[in-house]
């Protein structure tokens, strides 16, 4: 496309006038910025445990360690900064997987209708009733055992990738349901009929005419899902099922919750980071929803 479509530009303008949406956007932008350039400015390297040697582990915030140090002697600020790219990778990666599956399943169900719709939606509901969290914990643990002794073992961040894919595999049903509803609504619109009348192929109808019109609604659930995926990954890491090599906020909580009363900063900082990020994505989703579907609000 040569230039941004009008509907999106209008939505953008409406988002800029929406206070909470703008706050969400700023928070998300801040997290993205930290993830991109933060590591350059981090005061220490993420695996520096020298505080252990000088007996300053669990140390309160000082000018040398702005957020203090944790029980392993890590600089909390550095670890929190390095947690940002992990969190974003999880959120975006999981939602990418979920969006592809969700839009495909929901889109096909909505467009074809009839038996295909019925089957695909029952399949979606089946995924909705699975206790996702327990499932992910079980699969992550099983997979990390299975993988031992195979070449896969040497892949970097294999565990994290597994979590991302699993969050995606279990996170698509809400997207599929919305995609179905949108495709169902749009496939009977006159302009889709008009496209058919001028000899458009089903591929063009689906991807050129229906999907872009469904995107404004889908973007909202996807943004909401990013926050949810980040929160889920934190919980998984907090329970000790995360990737030991990936620095994640949940993992920081896991390492330090036992010393909560001794060094609260080591827990509050990653907790605050999770809070800011998830709040940012939720507010952004809310703002996007108001920006793209302004009539829903009344």
């Amino acid at each position, binding site marked *: 496309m040569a230039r941004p479509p009008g509907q999106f530009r209008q939505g953008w303008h409406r988002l800029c006038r929406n206070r909470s949406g703008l706050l969400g956007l700023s928070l998300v932008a801040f997290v993205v910025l930290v993830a991109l350039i933060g590591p350059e400015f981090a005061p220490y390297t993420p695996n520096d445990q020298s505080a252990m040697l000088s007996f300053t582990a669990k140390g309160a915030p000082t000018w040398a360690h702005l957020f203090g140090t944790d029980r392993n002697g890590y600089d909390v600020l550095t670890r929190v900064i390095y947690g940002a790219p992990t969190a974003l990778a999880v959120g975006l990666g999981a939602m990418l997987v979920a969006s592809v599956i969700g839009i495909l399943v929901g889109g096909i169900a909505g467009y074809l209708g009839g038996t295909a719709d019925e089957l695909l939606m029952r399949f979606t509901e089946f995924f909705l009733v699975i206790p996702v969290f327990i499932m992910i914990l079980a699969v992550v643990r099983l997979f990390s055992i299975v993988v031992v002794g195979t070449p896969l073992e040497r892949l970097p961040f294999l565990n994290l990738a597994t979590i991302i894919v699993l969050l995606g595999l279990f996170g698509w049903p809400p997207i599929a349901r919305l995609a179905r509803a949108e495709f169902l609504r749009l496939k009977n*619109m006159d*302009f889709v009929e008009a496209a058919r009348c001028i*000899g458009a192929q089903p591929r063009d109808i689906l991807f050129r005419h229906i999907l872009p019109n469904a995107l404004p609604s889908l973007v909202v659930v996807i943004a909401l899902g990013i926050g949810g995926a980040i929160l889920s990954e934190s919980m998984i890491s907090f329970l000790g099922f995360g990737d030991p090599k990936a620095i994640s906020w949940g993992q920081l909580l896991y390492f330090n919750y036992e010393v909560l009363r001794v060094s609260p900063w080591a827990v509050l900082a990653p907790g605050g980071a999770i809070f800011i990020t998830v709040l940012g994505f939720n507010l952004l989703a809310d703002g996007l929803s108001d920006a793209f579907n302004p009539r829903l609000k009344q």
Partner: protein
Amino acid sequence: MTDVPPLLNVRNLKVHFFTQAGVAPAVDGIDFRVNPRETLGLVGESGSGKTMASLAVLRLVPPPARIVSGSIEFQNRDLLTLDEAALRDLRGKHVAMIFQNPAYSLNPIFTIGDQLTEILRWHEPVSRTAARDRAADLLRLVGIADPLQRLRQFPHELSGGMKQRICIARALLCNPALILADEPTTNLDVTIQAQILDLLAELRDRLRMAMLLVSHDMGVVARMAHRITVVYAGRTCETGDARTIFHTPQHPYTRALLESTPRIDHDYEHATRPTLRTIGGRIPNLATPPTGCRFHPRCAEATEECAQLRPVPFEVAPGHSVSCLKRGSPGVAA
């Protein structure tokens, strides 16, 4: 007129809705014919099956409706036997459609230029700039000033009349032999209606196209059509040239329809009948259509046999056929 081979010949077309409540014969034996460079007005009330009949020409009747039988011949090809690829080639290139509601028939997220060039690039191997030039030419043809500016705009930036002009331009892009216009002016202001009708008439004559004009509005049809086919509840009532239909209508339904159309040359205040005549009753529920002639429950002339026998088209004069037992149509049991 009759010795010219027709461009489009629809015979005994049946489109049925297969719903859970049963089969509803929305179109149950419609015949019409469009000759080259001629405009046929397809007239009927809402729900008479006229839109379904026009969609059937493009083989685009939406599910749960299906074309059950009949034949649709276009340029001596039977459209009902074509495969999907051949149909895609036909749609837009040889037969184009203009919709009722211009506000909804343009994709809101693409510019006018994108939507117009899209069709050309599907049907003909043209470059982007050539397609753009042709689109601009067409916009000029449909009476749009500053076409290059319009090509960059989105549908919501344009007025209803402007959008309908663009829809007409889109229909004309590939020089189709036949235009299907489904109530092209129903959703427009009366003043814009007149402009659009004038434009359509002018373009039709200039580009030598045939047109199937679907409308419930006798005024619109009177202005545009050379010949008229009147349909009621999924069946053809009467076919003839426009003059005959308006001056000597034969079928009771056509007569009733004309009498219930307000006329500017009629003095209602001092007439013996100061109010406009209406047709009593309502259009039948097509899930349970009346037996025999479908119009008989509302027909003033109906007799016993009208409820029993289905009238078959009968030529009362050359080029003027009527389906009514009272006008000499033979009846078949059904």
